[in-house]
């Protein structure tokens, strides 16, 4: 008998508290995002696929074809070519192929780049029916965007 009525009182009180919490939750805003129709801003630190940064002064890419990104890449998903031009010191980028199918977004290439020519994009909607859609030509992209 000891504590019989106290248990009853405490139990009822805690049950009513619980019901109060769920009652309040009904009137709170929903947290679900109806994804395909509704989208939220992603954080700028997201590791999306690579893209070539466009320099604000020269209005083109900054790549100096040092090949460090391709050498550093653990899954060898970067391939780049450069050509010699007469009036320019060093080589000029002629092709930059990035294979997203094997990329693990480790970020070594971004870290190692001496001129910050490549960076992670905020693109996260990557779905396709063919593998070829994930082999990006980054140089073409940055030139088309010019």
């Amino acid at each position, binding site marked *: 008998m000891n504590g*019989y009525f106290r248990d*009853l009182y405490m139990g009822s009180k805690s*049950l009513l508290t*619980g*019901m109060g*919490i*769920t*009652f309040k*939750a*009904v009137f*709170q*805003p*929903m*947290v*679900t995002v*109806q994804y395909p129709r509704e989208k939220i801003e992603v954080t700028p630190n997201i590791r999306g696929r690579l893209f070539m940064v466009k320099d604000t002064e020269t209005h083109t890419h900054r790549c100096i074809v040092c090949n460090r990104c391709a050498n550093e890449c653990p899954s060898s998903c970067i391939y780049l070519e450069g050509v010699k031009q007469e009036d320019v010191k060093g080589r000029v980028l002629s092709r930059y192929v990035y294979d997203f199918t094997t990329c693990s977004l480790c970020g070594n290439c971004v870290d190692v780049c001496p001129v910050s020519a490549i960076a992670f994009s905020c693109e996260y909607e990557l779905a396709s029916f063919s593998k070829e859609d994930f082999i990006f030509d980054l140089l073409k992209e940055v030139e088309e965007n010019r």
Partner: protein
Amino acid sequence: MDNLIGTMARIISYAVILIAFGFANAIIMGYLERKLAARIQRRPGPMEVGPHGIYQLFVDGVKIIGKQLIVPKDVDGVLFRIAPILAFAPVVLPFIVIPFSQKLQARDFNLGLLFIVTIASINVLTIVMAGWASNNKYSLFGAMRSVAQNISFEVPVLISILCIALMTGTYSMQGIVKAQGNVWFILIQPVAFIIYFIAGLAETNRNPFDLPEAESELTAGFHTEYSGFGFSLFVIAEYANMFLVCSIATVLFLGGWHGIPLPFFEYTGAVWFLAKVYVLMVVMVWIRWTFPRVRFDQLLNFSWKYLIPFSLVNLLVTAICIKLFPLLKEML
């Protein structure tokens, strides 16, 4: 002969309407429950099929009808097949005596309340049947739990019903409603109402008393082996059972079809009746999505240590009051 045909036509039309009502109730409650559960968890719930997902349950129904009815190899074939049908019958039968309004009632038996209590207890039998016939240990455990639970919770239900029967002096559903013309019995018998509602929650095997089908312990309890429409008959029966428990609570404690008079009140009283019933059902859903499942010893302790002593004391006090103050009865 004419009379016989008329009676048969009446019986068949009642049966069709009642079964249709059982199914419609399952669709409404299924949708309401999913939406409310979602809101309590701060998600939108079904949204894709139709505006705010209102056609979701119809689509689910079509899907479930299209499913194959799998009968596992070593089950008791006959019992396994008839158990879901039998589960549905006892929850639809009591609708015969439920007074939706003054004139919307299939039959007003003078023992209507006892009729409901008697028929509703068949429900346990079908659960045991399903659990036993499934030849599955989880099903059998679920069924056994259901029996223990229903036996221990039927006692407080009956005692709290008895309190009302003592006050009104009738078991007729219509008579009990009419006795509440001035005061609803929830104001005179709040303890009986609370006891009835909690025990009714346990009778319908719903959270927090859903031990017969506890997912985390027994996969799905007595309906583990059921698929397709056999399974959905159990679900529809559960919702119909909820409706039944809530409508008895409405008749006994909330004044049945009494409310603000509407035109043609002999029929439109059903609006108030259904409103009260669905409010109680929403409370049931609310409780389900708030509380975790009780342990089995807690369940039985709750019934035998709290509900039954309190309902017995309540019955005693009611009886004494009626004997000492006959005027009180006149006043109601």
